[in-house]
């Protein structure tokens, strides 16, 4: 047994789980899929006294679709998204992203809520959620709050979560049906954490463009110049490349030459894919 000893409880309701997680004087950790927490427990990087199992809370498994948005409960697994069990209003983008997260056995258990709560700068979902301006619903000691993903993630492994908080799920605005996307990821091997993550989306031909880059800095970042350049019909690849370079210099001054070339190539690859749709 590698983890240090801890107590374990499986509350029946979200309210009970929140109270248990917020217990004073006790170092608590919530476990859902456990695919990130388990290695941290084994390495004793995480040392909770009490592990609160939230994996069976039905209120966190709700998935609904309204005309304007999709609600994904925090316990939605990567595999469920990959297999198209959740509403596919993103023309396949979510499925493409999900299918490249880690490995199938991990995707079977790993959840979107757990991934976002960990806020690894190289994680996929924060980039996706940021692209669409998604919001989180979080239940905690002071009731429920709604927060945008960009406000929620403060930096590497840093979020606004405090003791007793539980992410209920994500409200993701649905794009227009004509929406096009490009997604590109650089990783040493398939399933490994990304060195670069780029999502480029356009609301139809000639519509507004958004480009978001992950794994380059402390949190996902909108590439403003790149998006503006991609909005110009028939702008050349050289012009797009120059815009990406300008964005990288503006937001990620610390990157070395190799990293800049890698991110440039990756964003360009995503942009090409989007334009080809």
């Amino acid at each position, binding site marked *: *047994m*590698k*983890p*240090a*000893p*801890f*107590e*374990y409880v*499986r509350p029946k309701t979200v309210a009970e789980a929140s109270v248990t997680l917020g217990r004073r004087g006790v170092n608590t950790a919530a*476990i859902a899929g*456990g*695919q990130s927490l*388990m*290695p941290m*427990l*084994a*390495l004793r990087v995480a040392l909770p006294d009490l*592990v609160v*199992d939230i*994996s069976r809370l039905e209120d966190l498994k709700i998935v609904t679709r309204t005309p304007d948005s999709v609600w994904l409960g925090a316990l939605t697994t990567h*595999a469920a998204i990959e297999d198209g069990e959740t509403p596919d209003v993103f023309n396949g983008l979510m499925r493409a992203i999900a299918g490249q997260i*880690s*490995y*199938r*056995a*991990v995707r*079977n*258990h790993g959840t979107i809520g757990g991934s976002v709560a960990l806020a690894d700068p190289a994680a996929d979902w924060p980039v996706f959620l940021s692209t669409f301006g998604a919001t989180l619903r979080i239940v905690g000691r002071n009731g429920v709050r709604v927060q945008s993903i960009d406000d929620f993630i403060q930096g590497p492994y840093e979020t606004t979560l405090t003791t007793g908080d539980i992410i209920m799920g994500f409200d993701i605005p649905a794009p227009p049906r004509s929406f096009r996307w490009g997604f590109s990821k650089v990783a040493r*091997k*398939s*399933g490994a954490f990304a060195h670069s993550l780029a999502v480029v989306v356009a609301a139809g031909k000639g519509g507004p463009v958004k480009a978001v880059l992950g794994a380059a800095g402390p949190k996902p970042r909108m590439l403003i110049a790149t998006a503006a350049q991609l909005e110009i019909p028939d702008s050349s690849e050289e012009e797009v490349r120059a815009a990406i370079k300008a964005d990288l210099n503006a937001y990620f001054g610390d990157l070395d030459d190799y990293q800049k070339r890698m991110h440039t190539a990756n964003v360009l690859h995503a942009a090409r894919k989007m334009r080809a749709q």
Partner: protein
Amino acid sequence: MTTVTIDLNGVKIAADVEPRQSLADFLRDACGLTATHLGCEHGACGACTVVVDGKATRSCLSLAVMCDGRAVQTLEGLRSDAMMELLRRHFHESHALQCGFCTPGMLIMARDILRRHSRPDAAIVRHELSGQICRCTGYANIVKAIVAAGQEIANVATSEE
């Protein structure tokens, strides 16, 4: 200690587990089911892959206590599973193992791949197998065995139509 009830390879068992015990340690140490191998113990190597409620699962990344009420299948429990018999034969014929340490995880994952993909080609198998590490074979024969098994299933299905 917490008491859990688990459907283990088709048999209902009740056991007392320490909360920090992984499913892998529980299977090997408490149940004597040593087909489940432990390589990295942090989810990278795939040797410990088992099936929980029908889903391929890293047993090193699961707590035994969280499997309370679930159905767990290890390689031992898939001895007479039709697809596993087929895979064993193809692993044998293609010489898809050398030291055998990764093989239990490879077989479980191979079965999972064939349940989700009909007649997968080598590219699909390689992508799907990227979470399983083998340090002997160079993967070529493992991929060959799974592709061949997938073809045999598809051919049998076609001839039965």
